[in-house]
């Protein structure tokens, strides 16, 4: 069970940021290794890319992009909170405009594919 003093949004944001960072750090060596195959063993790389086309791997890729997005925006949130002395209203407006532009961008993306 969640300890009572942790059940609030900021703590969840903190743990999400931590865990996504950890997961990305674990993934990175594999990422670099595969990239290095392009130089050291192009045939293996082709084999791998072929394998990576499987649906399950695609779903896993979604997870990866999700982690990246969570970590990226979590970091931006922290930097904005700590470095910009904004008022509550300014923060709400900023968050709203980011969410809105996200919505527009996502709908364009969906039309493109």
């Amino acid at each position, binding site marked *: 069970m969640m300890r009572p003093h942790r059940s*609030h949004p900021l*703590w969840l944001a903190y743990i999400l940021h931590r865990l996504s960072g950890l997961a990305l750090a674990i993934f990175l060596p594999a990422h670099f290794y595969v990239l290095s195959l392009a130089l050291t063993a192009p045939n293996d790389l082709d084999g791998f890319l072929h394998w990576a086309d499987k649906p399950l791997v695609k779903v896993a890729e979604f997870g990866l992009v999700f982690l990246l997005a969570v970590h990226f925006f979590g970091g931006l949130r922290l930097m904005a909170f*700590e470095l910009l002395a904004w008022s509550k209203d300014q923060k709400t407006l900023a968050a709203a405009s980011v969410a809105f532009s996200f919505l527009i961008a996502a709908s364009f993306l969906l039309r493109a594919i």
Partner: protein
Amino acid sequence: MAFGSNTLDVSVWRGDADGGKFESFQVPSQESQTILDVVVWIQQKIDPSLAYRYACRVGMCGSCAMSVNGQPRWTCRTHVQKVLRGRRVEIAPLRNLPVIKDLATDMDPFFEKWVRAEGVFHPTLTRNDEIARVSPVDQRRVEADAAVECINCAICYASCDTVQGNPDYLGPAALNRAWTLVNDVKDGKRSSILEAVSQEGGCHNCHSQGSCAKFCPNELSPITSIAGLKRETTKSFFGRG
């Protein structure tokens, strides 16, 4: 006493620095009863050896904080009806502080950190000087104003996982106090305070989990004060503050 529908089933942590366990008490339920009322009732009617601390009973002195159902609260202003789970409630000493006995914790480490954070006023004038004028709309006064109502109850300190993980960390209350002084134009040692709070265990240890602001009974926001300290220490690091 018989266990009826108007009886509370209260678990109270009993023990000392070497450990302890929960003990169960049956307490008659009353209208507008606070958690502190329950603790006082147990001590006066059942077990006079129960140790706890309080003074004002009206949310001013900050001495009655305890952990209620796992969450730090000021017990004199916490209504039983609000926190009851069925008929049960669990009362324990605050987290992150050494226990003296039962519900009373040793506050020394907490206040020592206030001093380490330079959370003491550094005067520049004497009683013979004119009183310095501070405009209530001055930006720094507004910043300080938002943080001055601290009652030193250590609820933020008990709720903070960074304090738990790093015994050296000054904690939200001490840093919040330092922030009020950084914004006090009458304080003569702004740079010493910034120096003190940027040491190991200082404001840059904060992970912005925000439990301090979430649970502060006076609705202060130490996390915002600490963010302010992070900004000011960063500025002074780059020689612009």
